[in-house]
């Protein structure tokens, strides 16, 4: 489903913001997809791959795909920009 090494699929970029970025200690990562997956599947994959990334779990963060807020069932395609972040507090 997800292949972090290499393959025939395009990369997706995953960005993290604000408190989540600080807690994970990373601004953004790139992943190579071998098939389309959902946001929820991507979260499960990232949590399984990284120790202490439980903050990424569903319900604790918002997700945007290609700059649009989306829910856990949204499908991520190759080339997409995915972002995870806490509820917004601007204005």
């Amino acid at each position, binding site marked *: 489903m997800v292949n972090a090494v290499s393959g025939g699929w395009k990369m997706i970029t995953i*960005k993290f*913001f*604000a*408190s989540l970025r*600080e807690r994970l200690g990373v601004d953004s990562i790139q992943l190579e997809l071998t098939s389309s997956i959902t946001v929820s599947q991507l979260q499960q994959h990232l949590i399984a791959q990284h120790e202490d990334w439980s903050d990424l779990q569903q319900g604790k963060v918002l997700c*945007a795909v290609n*700059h*649009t*807020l989306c829910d856990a069932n949204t499908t991520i395609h190759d080339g997409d*920009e995915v*972002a995870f*972040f*806490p*509820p*917004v*507090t*601007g*204005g």
Partner: protein
Amino acid sequence: MISIQREDFNVGDEYELLRKTSRSEGAVVTFVGLVRDVNLSDSVTALELEHYPGMTEKVLNELCDEARQRWVLGAIRIIHRVGKLQANDQIVFVGVSSRHRQDAFDAAQFVMDVLKTQAPFWKKEHGVNSAKWVEVRETDMLALQRWQNPQDPQ
């Protein structure tokens, strides 16, 4: 027009621009959000605003489009600052002109209510010895609801 910027803005200049581009509109409403002297804690010395470049602009542009679908508006102007701010600094400007004052008021409130809950900005408070991300306020989530409920008389 929308701007995300580190620089401060001048409300008088922004108002005059709105007025100049609104010769058929009789009403101009502006909102400015400021860093309070006392925010969550007395020890806050500065505020830091982070945003998601690209998505922020998209959300704010869509917000302007939606406001224009809901009301007959003249000009809409949104400015949001990012970076480090001090007490009493200006954070956000929303200006709307319309033929009808109710539309101008409603549109300005709508923009602020949606911006507060949907636009990817995050505030961090810097104190003397520590820093803390600002928590979401329940009242901001509630404020959004009135624009989502079709049977609401507004």
